[in-house]
């Protein structure tokens, strides 16, 4: 048995039966990190030095019967835009290279309350802006299936770490696809919860009206388990919704008979790779075979979703990132003679090209004279997108689309072509715009052996239905039994 191959559900079973200790699990992950991290580059700040000590403490508490939390002693990795008190939170930016948050994000508090062991902070595109993790100021994370390929982004470190077995599960954040797309590229499960289900307090904001924290896991049951931990209203985040506490694992019924699936044709058109399309069609056939009803449908406004997304996300980002001005924390230029110099040079030197591109774009669309044509118009389209999804959900329980138009691409091929990079989000952004939950699960590999992701979109706060749909498919095709990352091109 290879400990790092086990799901958290399995780890937990073995812990409960005393077949494994916390220390054994932690040690196995540390060994794996030592072995594979040099190839994968998933971590910005590994915390392996303190993990064993933490493991001992937790084991002692478990032995003394002092801990009643469900996931005590289970390791985890956290995307580096989620604040962890006393540990650097860099957002993979030179701007925050040495920033240590003086407080914990709400999700971090929840993870800590569970007694989970934080193995480290995971790499990402700078400030979560990107689709390949190549825009990290520190390192390029590699795809465990093929080290010449990107892991996707922006939560590329989280997805790659889970795929490579460096952590059993991880937290990511998703503004336009940043959990689902890297999950798809790395052959793991990524869930973007409904906007408002998980507190954003302590998530360094990219686009406040779109950002959500969510789990990246080996399988769907783990996804439901980690969602149990992080979901729930937080009085520190007024956009988080009061909902009853649910046990999402109870939704996993392994049965989709009668499930009404809509397949929006707009997501299968131009630009979608034929192998991706074929894999999706096959997956859809599996659903039919399992007793679900499948129908083609249309969400015409989807064509405008990407443009809308980049206006809204950049507008909010231009304001959210204003606080990085060299005054209170983060990078300050050594080159200044005036206040204006501090502002301009700190930001010029501290931010990478993609972040600056989006700040400029966002500043432009909010400027007087352009506001109505861009920002206001985008908000109007946003309303229409919501309406079209609401309409589709009158008829269907879930919608199925590819997660990304392609499989993972080669490192370097898109990093200098922003527009092509933006297209990687085309299937995922509308879910954020509409605030819906979406999950990406692997549904096959292409001719090069790279994983293909299927996106299942659900109604607001109906994570149960998409989790069950994903779980039932997963149980049938058993992707993990057939395919594992091979670290090609090592």
């Amino acid at each position, binding site marked *: 048995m290879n400990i790092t191959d086990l799901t958290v559900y399995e780890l937990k079973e073995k812990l409960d039966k005393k077949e494994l200790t916390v220390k054994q699990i932690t040690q196995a992950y540390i060994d794996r990190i030592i072995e594979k991290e040099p190839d994968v580059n998933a971590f910005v700040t590994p915390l392996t030095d303190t993990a064993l000590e933490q493991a001992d403490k937790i084991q002692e508490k478990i032995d003394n019967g002092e801990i009643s939390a469900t996931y005590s002693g289970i390791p985890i990795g956290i995307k580096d*835009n*989620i*604040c962890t008190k006393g540990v650097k*939170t860099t*957002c993979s930016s030179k701007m*925050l290279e040495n*920033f240590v*948050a*003086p*407080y914990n*994000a709400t999700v971090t508090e929840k993870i800590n309350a569970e007694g989970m062991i934080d193995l480290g902070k995971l790499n990402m595109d700078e400030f979560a802006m990107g689709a390949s993790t190549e825009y990290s100021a520190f390192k390029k994370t590699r795809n465990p299936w093929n080290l010449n390929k990107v892991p996707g982004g922006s939560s590329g470190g989280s997805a790659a770490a889970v795929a490579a077995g460096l952590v059993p599960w991880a937290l990511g954040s998703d503004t336009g696809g940043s959990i689902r797309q890297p999950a798809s590229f790395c052959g793991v499960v990524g869930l973007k919860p409904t906007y408002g289900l998980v507190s*954003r*307090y*302590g*998530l*360094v*904001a990219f*686009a*406040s*009206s779109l950002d959500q924290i969510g789990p990246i896991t080996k399988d769907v049951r783990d996804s439901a388990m980690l969602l149990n931990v992080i979901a729930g209203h937080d*009085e*520190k*985040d*007024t*956009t988080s919704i009061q909902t009853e506490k649910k046990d999402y694992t109870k939704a996993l019924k392994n049965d989709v008979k009668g499930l009404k699936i809509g397949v929006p044709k707009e997501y299968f058109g131009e630009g979608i790779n034929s192998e991706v399309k074929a894999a999706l069609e096959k997956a859809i056939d599996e659903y039919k075979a399992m007793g679900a009803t499948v129908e083609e449908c249309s969400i015409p406004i989807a064509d405008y979703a990407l443009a809308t997304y980049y206006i809204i996300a950049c*507008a*909010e980002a*231009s*304001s959210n990132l*204003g*606080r*990085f*001005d060299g*005054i*209170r*924390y983060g990078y300050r230029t050594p080159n200044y003679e005036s*206040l204006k110099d501090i*502002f301009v040079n700190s930001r010029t030197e501290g931010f990478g090209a993609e972040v600056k591109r989006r700040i400029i774009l966002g*500043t432009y669309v*909010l*400027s*007087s004279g352009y*506001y109505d044509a861009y*920002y206001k118009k985008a908000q109007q389209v946003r309303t229409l997108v919501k309406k079209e999804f609401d309409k589709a959900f009158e008829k269907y329980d879930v919608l199925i689309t590819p997660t990304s138009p392609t499989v993972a691409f080669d490192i370097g091929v898109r990093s200098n072509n922003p527009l092509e990079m933006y297209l990687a989000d085309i299937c995922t952004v509308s879910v954020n715009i509409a605030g819906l939950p979406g999950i990406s699960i692997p549904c096959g590999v292409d001719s090069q052996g790279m994983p293909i992701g299927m996106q299942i979109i659900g109604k607001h706060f109906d994570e149960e239905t998409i989790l069950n749909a994903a779980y039932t498919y997963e149980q049938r095709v058993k992707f993990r039994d057939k395919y594992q990352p091979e670290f090609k091109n090592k």
Partner: protein
Amino acid sequence: MPREDYEVIIGLEVHSELSTKTKIFCSCPTEFGGAPNTHTCPVCMAMPGTLPVLNEKVVEYAVKAGLATNCEISRNSKNDRKNYFYPDLPKSYQISQFDKPLCEHGYVEIETENGPKKIRLTRIHIEEDAGKLNHDPYGRGSLVDLNRAGVPLIEIVSEPDLRSSSEVEMYMKKLKSILEYIEVSDCKMQEGSLRADVNVSIRPKGSSKLGTRTEMKNMNSFRSIVRAIEYEVDRQVEVIDNGGTITQETLRWDDVSGRTFSMRDKEDAQDYRYFPDPDLVAIKLSDEYIENIRKNLPELPESRKERYIAEYSLTEKEANILTASKYLSDMFEKASKICGNTKAVANWLLSDVSRILNEKEWEPDRIPFAAESLAELITLIEKGTISSAIAKKVLEEMFETPEKMPSKIIEEKGWVQISDEGAIKEVVLKILAANMQSVTDYKAGKDKALGFLVGQAMKETKGKANPQMLNKMFVEEINKM
């Protein structure tokens, strides 16, 4: 063209700090002062990842202010971000309200020489205060203090309905008094909790077209507001009379030199890129919520004034002065209740207390002693423990050592009135022996002589002898002679 031929048009943006216990978006205290950056937390220091949570009290206070100034209250309002870079603005945006303020279309009434006048309010909105920059005493630049960052403010925007600096002063005083009465702000101008930006333009009388306006900032007393307006109107008249044109610009008033300086002109006018704050949900107010606040609004200055005239038979002028400041009015009511002598309390507040305030150029809210002290002072006079003359001296002391009750001051200073018959008799006999001529004069019918004798006795006792007793005893003793 002489100045009298121009009409002065003034509109005000008044910022008032709300007296909520905690800040608008976090639970830090709003208390004034404190060592730099001690009233702060990750939220008001704008640490990455933090989120604002709107303090419901702020909404309640703003609605109160809106209702007290006859505004319509929006059922559906929101917060917007005003983006600009400045070291005292930690998020690099101020959370304010742009196109959907909480309160709109109100007015307040002022009493001008030509009768009452309504000053229309465009809007009242809520927003957060910024921090403060201090100069590093060691000269290494500026130091940022974020204690004020996130303190709640309301901005009250008037229509350009004001026509003179004295109208502005009346309007400001009226606003201050209303805000104090409804207890939403302590309006301490010296602490910056009430401040105004003044927009001034001029036009030839009879013209209906507005002139170009300038905006003045940094006035922190009624006096400096009046001075700044007078200065700016003179300046504008001079510019126009010399064939120039007024530039739309922001001016900073300098109280020391008594003139304005240009801060920035329209050319580098900021584009604040307002947009709805996605971190905050819409502010939705129900009719019941608003009605509940309306029902529980405290008595406003107008109705208190009318009550004073009717119940205490004060003149309109007296009632006006007493009610203009809630602090003064509350002190009047409290002291009256304790000592039971409304007329005396009113007299003391309107004469001696007001005189001392004027000398000190203080607003009534800086009266340092409590209503209990004033009440005791009046009771001491009534009981004959001190004379009115001594009481005036005691009042002066009360301003200096407000923590001491009048009885304590009198005791310490040895100012207790001599009402002991034996002691009075001793003094009377001594004065009579030394002034036999006056005795003769009095007996000859010169009543003035008695006054002289009493005066001598008062001098002898340093004003402490009970004057009524002196009078009585002098007459008795002279008659015995």
